């Protein structure tokens, strides 16, 4: 939805101020409150839903499938489905790729191993974005975090050693004996290493306006941003992916008029909204995230629980 020049000018000047003045007076590192629900889909191994105050909603379901002779890289499959947007368009593909790489590089795949050489679990993480007004990356990332936190995998009762004699995996009937994906026990069982628990990774999109970095940008803030930064967070520090995106149009909210306008600007050789950014700003974003992300993880951990949730 296009804004009037007056609105854009007001927003930009407010956001570029030092310190920044956001439309809802938030601090640069303050997120908007979200609604969360977990564990409400008994047919999945883990499920979660996040709703944001601007009407965004994402439901994630995690299902585990036993696979044989699969390479380690294929054990995590993330698919993001955005309502109203075709699956093969850039936005869902970008989100799926970013999240898949992030989770795969952060998880110790021994958690998914079943037998020494042949069998393992493959996790299908499907995220359904029912509605969104701003770039949905934050939304999906938070939902996937909560879903993974409550994911449980059945306990293997057949032998894990199948190097000589192949055996189809058999699992315990009792769900009470299932193991939390993020817990320590599953790692100790499968690989004999220490029982360390795993905190799923997160990925954030930050808006850059002038010299200011803003977390959890609203649709308005995104429209006037110079550019957006995608930064991952895992194991207590900033991690890949690290990307620069054009937030104003990446959300898929570009009107046909704006698209044709951009097209003609490109043809004339005019630089689009997206300006380059300085090293200083990237470092600023880095330290902002380093200071803020631990609290986000703490808030999520406090919410996550093993009990069954209800959606409403």
């Amino acid at each position, binding site marked *: 939805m296009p804004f009037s*020049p*007056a609105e854009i000018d007001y927003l930009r000047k407010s956001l570029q*101020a030092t310190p920044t003045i956001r439309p*809802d*007076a938030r601090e640069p590192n303050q997120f*908007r409150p979200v609604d969360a629900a977990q564990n409400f889909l008994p047919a999945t191994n883990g499920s979660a839903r996040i709703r944001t105050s601007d009407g965004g909603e994402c439901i994630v379901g995690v299902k585990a499938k036993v696979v044989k002779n699969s390479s380690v890289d294929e054990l995590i499959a993330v698919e993001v489905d955005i309502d109203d947007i075709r699956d093969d368009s850039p936005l869902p593909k970008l989100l799926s790729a970013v999240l898949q790489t992030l989770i795969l590089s952060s998880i110790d795949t021994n958690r998914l191993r079943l037998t020494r050489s042949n069998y393992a679990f493959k996790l299908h993480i499907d995220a359904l974005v029912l509605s969104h007004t701003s770039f949905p990356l934050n939304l999906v990332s938070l939902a996937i975090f909560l879903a993974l936190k409550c994911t449980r995998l059945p306990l293997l009762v057949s032998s894990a050693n199948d190097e000589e004699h192949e055996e189809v995996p058999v699992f315990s009937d009792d769900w009470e004996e299932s193991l939390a994906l993020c817990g320590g026990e599953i790692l100790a069982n499968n690989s004999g290493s220490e029982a360390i628990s795993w905190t799923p990774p997160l990925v954030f999109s930050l808006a850059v306006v002038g010299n200011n970095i803003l977390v959890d940008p609203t649709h308005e803030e995104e429209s006037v941003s110079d550019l957006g930064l995608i930064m991952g967070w895992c194991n207590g520090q900033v991690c890949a992916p690290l990307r620069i995106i054009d937030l104003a149009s990446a959300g898929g909210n570009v009107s046909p008029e704006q698209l044709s306008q951009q097209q003609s600007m490109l043809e004339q050789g005019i630089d689009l909204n997206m300006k380059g950014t300085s090293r200083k700003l990237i470092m600023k974003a880095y330290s902002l995230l380093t200071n803020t992300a631990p*609290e986000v993880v703490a808030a999520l951990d406090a919410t996550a629980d093993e009990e069954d949730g209800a959606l409403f």
Partner: protein
Amino acid sequence: MAILTIQKATPREEEDVEMVYSDADSDAEEQMVMSDDENEDMDDNAQAANVAAGLVTPGKLITEDPIWMRGHGTYSVGNKTFSSTAGVVTKTNKLLSVVPLRGRYQPQIGDHVVGRIVDVGVKRWRVDIGAKQLAVLQLGSVNLPGGILRRKQESDELQMRGFLKEGDLINTEVQSLYQDGSAALHTRSLRYGKLRNGVLITVPSALIVRAKSHVHQLPGGVDTVVGVNGWIWLCMAWANSHLTRENTTSITRLEEEASLTETYSDKNEDIPRSVRENIARYANCFKALAANEVGITEDRVIAAYEASLVYPSAGDLIDKEAKEIIAAKAIAA
């Protein structure tokens, strides 16, 4: 200030399931029985009897009395009038209608609304006001620079985007309604026109209480236009603001022309930091009232603002508890 607050879904309440079933039964009985009150003024309001009262749902029989005129939210089959929505039965004189519990903004003549230009057509603009259809603003219904009595020229039609283009926000009034309920707007007054120097926020239109004036000057150097359609414009107070100037007869021609040229300008004034912060604070106050479903009036907004000053950082107002506290104080005022 919490970096991130997460609310868990509240568990469902199942206690009043039984009650609900029995109420449904008693409502059904009410429909056909005359209440005692209405018995007393039977002679005047004989027709008031035999009408279902209170909450009705689609398909419910409201009355079999043919004397009523059927308004919105009802439909008739023969002499029987049924409800077509979930809502409350209202009787105004001889008109029987059902006001839906929820629905988009329904324009009425005289409503002061805020809208966004969506389309520029031949001699007219189409404006989004959050209703079921776009509203129409004719070229002849706006004031053009050069004076109110200036004749419309052909060049005006070609230059429509010079006055109002896609994305512009305007302050306007519903002049009339078309057959299908959509609105025709006009800005033929110095009070109306393009909006600058501020931000737009939206709240559900049902929460806007209709008042004599919808333009308010709020403490803190902020002016606001509370559109009846739930679109609210918050901006810097302006000494010569065309928003707040009354339609006086003593406007000189020069003043009038000057203000009209300004009317279509896209440029903002310089807005000091404190005003910007106050605008953000007011935005949060409006949102707090909306989240708690409090009807919005000038007094309540000011009360909410004053209650919010307890929080030095207006960003704390986005939390649910803070919103509830502010809304409670606003109602109490």
